[in-house]
């Protein structure tokens, strides 16, 4: 029988006065057994991270504290043990890995010394033994050249390597519990798949109980034994993974799961033969510049785009899919002339726009517009929403009254209250801001819309609302769209055709359905097989609805 490791009963965490709610979490009960993975799922602000911190005794004291309940770890109540005892437990019995391995590691200490201190503060080992053990650990987590990694500093490793080093550190003393706080959120899908596999493998070896915090139901489907769903600090549903995922009871769980886009592509529109945008053999290289007066060696060069060729047909949505560094955002910025291309041609209506001078380009701004990724960075905090939207037409020489009228119309089209016109961006939520950004891009009545990861900064339930909105608008305004994304689920639901990019090259392009059914390029195959929860096909899973949603996010 598997031994019970952790038993949290009736836990309340109190927030300081003046916070938006009194308790970060209320009445939380959970259990964790040896060798088991419990996933805590919730959107931002659900209290899932604070629950994890409480288990480590790492709440930001004294403002945030456990006000009621107990956390029993092997018959000891962690909320009551002495500081010394807590310190003993941390890192040796219970350890933790974090979302952002770059900031979670000390930037000025080598990986080796950061692993070494765990041994120094918990067990009595000679320096040579500690070194040997650290190298073994790095080897265990499949890091190449462990000796070299020992001497490396965090900034010299890739994101995936850093997270591996973090895991090595966390598992150094074979803890009974591993708490993983969104450990793969900052990583690319293929790296994510590797890290998830690593955690699973290590769990088998050490029989560790894993408490895994995530917002991604795909990840849940891949690794969880049991699931616990939290909303506003309250556990709304918990149970075995199959039961919760396939047969959710609570409306919130249902909503969350149905918001996860399905991996089976939706039906593509019949594609018109008319090309609205042609990208031919476009290249772009970064770096290579020299210092002042041309002295010094040229800096390191990165080929961001290598000979990229693709066409956009009238009325379609073309997905550009790839991981970070694939060049997909650079491509978007070259098309909309935020960056200059080195060579190649980008053509609209027979005019090669990538060679136009700034002034001449201004007239073409009406044709092509962009929706940005980060709703918090894409709106000027000092300018009122109405002016943000009206700015475009005014810049293009339309008179102010006309522009303001159009802005008001657009505010209602994107599903916002008319009062929004005179408010500042900070008064809106992420989803609402993204609606404002969409309204701004539509104000010039463009024919082509480039959407650069428009939903990746949003919670999953809001994601689907924004995707619905984009889909509606595309129909209504007869737009052709280039949709940049790293998320294959989103791509499956949005794109008629898609282009897969890797290291600045388009490795595969075709109908979305064909690519999902029969990927040709090895990288596409890798990418598809790395999608979390790919084997989980819930009946509840989301297909884009055709009903017009005007719900406010």
């Amino acid at each position, binding site marked *: 029988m598997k031994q019970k490791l952790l038993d949290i009963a009736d836990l309340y965490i109190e927030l300081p006065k003046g916070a938006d709610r009194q308790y970060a979490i209320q009445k939380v009960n959970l259990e964790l057994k040896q060798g088991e993975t419990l996933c805590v799922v919730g959107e931002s602000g659900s209290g899932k991270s604070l629950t994890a911190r409480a288990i480590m005794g790492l709440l930001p004291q004294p403002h945030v504290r456990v006000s009621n309940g107990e956390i029993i770890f092997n018959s000891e109540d962690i909320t009551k043990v002495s500081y010394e005892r807590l310190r003993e437990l941390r890192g040796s019995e219970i350890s933790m890995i974090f979302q952002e391995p770059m900031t979670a590691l000390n930037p000025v200490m080598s990986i080796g010394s950061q692993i070494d201190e765990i041994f120094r503060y918990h067990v009595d080992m000679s320096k040579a033994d500690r070194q040997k053990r650290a190298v073994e650990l790095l080897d265990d987590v499949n890091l190449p050249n462990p000796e070299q990694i020992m001497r490396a500093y965090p900034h010299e490793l890739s994101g995936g390597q850093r997270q591996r080093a973090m895991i090595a550190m966390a598992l150094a003393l074979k803890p009974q519990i591993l708490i993983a706080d969104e450990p793969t959120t900052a990583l690319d899908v293929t790296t994510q798949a590797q890290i998830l596999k690593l955690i699973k493998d290590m769990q088998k070896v050490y029989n560790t109980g894993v408490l895994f915090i995530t917002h991604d139901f795909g990840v849940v489907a891949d690794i969880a034994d049991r699931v616990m769903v939290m909303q506003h600090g309250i556990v709304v549903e918990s149970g075995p993974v199959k039961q919760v995922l396939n047969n959710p009871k609570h409306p919130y769980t249902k909503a969350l799961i149905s918001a996860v886009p399905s991996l089976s592509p939706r039906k593509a529109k019949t594609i018109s033969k008319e090309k609205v945008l042609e990208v031919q053999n476009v290249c772009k290289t970064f770096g290579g*510049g020299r*210092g*002042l007066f041309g002295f010094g060696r040229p800096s390191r060069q990165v080929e961001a785009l290598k000979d990229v060729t693709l066409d956009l047909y009238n009325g379609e949505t073309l997905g550009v899919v790839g991981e970070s560094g694939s060049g997909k955002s650079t491509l978007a*910025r070259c098309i*909309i*002339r*935020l960056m200059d291309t080195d060579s190649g041609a980008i053509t609209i209506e027979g005019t090669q726009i990538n060679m136009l001078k700034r002034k001449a*380009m*201004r007239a073409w*701004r009406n044709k*092509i*517009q*962009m929706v*940005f*990724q*980060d709703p918090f*960075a*894409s*709106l*000027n*905090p*000092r*300018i009122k929403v109405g002016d943000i939207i009206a*700015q*475009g037409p005014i*810049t*293009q020489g339309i008179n102010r009254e006309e522009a303001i009228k159009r802005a008001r119309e657009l505010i209602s089209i994107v599903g916002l209250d008319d009062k929004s016109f005179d408010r500042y961006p900070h008064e809106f939520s992420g989803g609402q801001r993204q609606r404002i*950004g969409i309204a*701004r*891009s539509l104000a*010039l009545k463009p024919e082509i819309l480039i959407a650069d990861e428009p939903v990746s900064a949003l919670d999953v339930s809001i994601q689907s609302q924004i995707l619905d909105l984009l889909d509606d608008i595309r129909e209504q305004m007869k737009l052709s769209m280039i949709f940049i994304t790293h998320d294959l689920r989103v791509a499956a639901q949005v794109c008629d055709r898609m282009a897969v990019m890797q290291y600045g090259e388009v490795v595969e392009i075709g109908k979305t359905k064909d690519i999902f059914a029969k990927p040709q390029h090895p990288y596409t195959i890798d990418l598809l097989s790395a999608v979390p929860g790919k084997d989980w096909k819930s009946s509840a899973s989301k297909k884009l609805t055709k009903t017009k949603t005007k719900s406010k996010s």
Partner: protein
Amino acid sequence: MRDFWNRYKRNRSAVFGLVVIFLVILMAATADLLYAFDPFRLAGKPLSSPGTNGFLLGSDSLGRDVAAGIVHGAKTSLLIGLVATLVAVFIGILFGALAGYYGGQIDNILMRVTEVFQTIPSFIFAILLVAILKPSIYSVVIAISVVSWPGVARLVRGEFLSLKNREFVQACHTLGMSDLRIMLREILPNCLSPIIVIGSLMIATAILIESGLSFLGLGDPNIMSWGFQIGAGRTMLRSAWWVCTFPGVAILITVLAINLVGEGLNDALNPRLRERN
């Protein structure tokens, strides 16, 4: 605005600083009423100690009234501090904005120039400038401005550098907005807070530099200032401590108050930083 005041009000020492500055300004504004005579004039018996011979704060070796000097000196300090800072902030914004926005070679050249001015020991440079231009209120303002703008330039450059890649600025490019409009209307308003904070602290530094220059005898010879008073009194330190002491206290209080206000502004304009501590 009200929001801002509420946040500012929470910092009690900042409110205290504001009150003190207000009093100093009041003192400077009414100088000609309080002591309606030339502060350089012989007003009574030399080296009278405070409270004697009708001197509130005593008199110096030439019989000049120390209190009158302090009241008239307040005008000099505030005026020079303010004007020099405004000039320096203007130059700094110009350099910083162009360097940060355009980057590349323009940035390279402008920042090299800034670096040269930052390397030169500023006080010695100020001394040199005043000595060569001949001491006057103008040369003092020029000297202080010339040595204080590089800090602003670096700050503004940094802000522009990070803001120009923000998506809202990129969105303006996609709308076809002109560079000048983007710089002035989109980016600059977003870096006003740190500029206001550094500007307020620069006024304090400018007052200190001015007092140092006039202490060394490089002030405008026709205008009373605190530094000059202290410089004139230093030889009689043994016999007449008050001549040096009181103007120094005036500088201390004024500069302290400005610094407190600067910190208050910082807290009120960057609420997030405050919460972190």
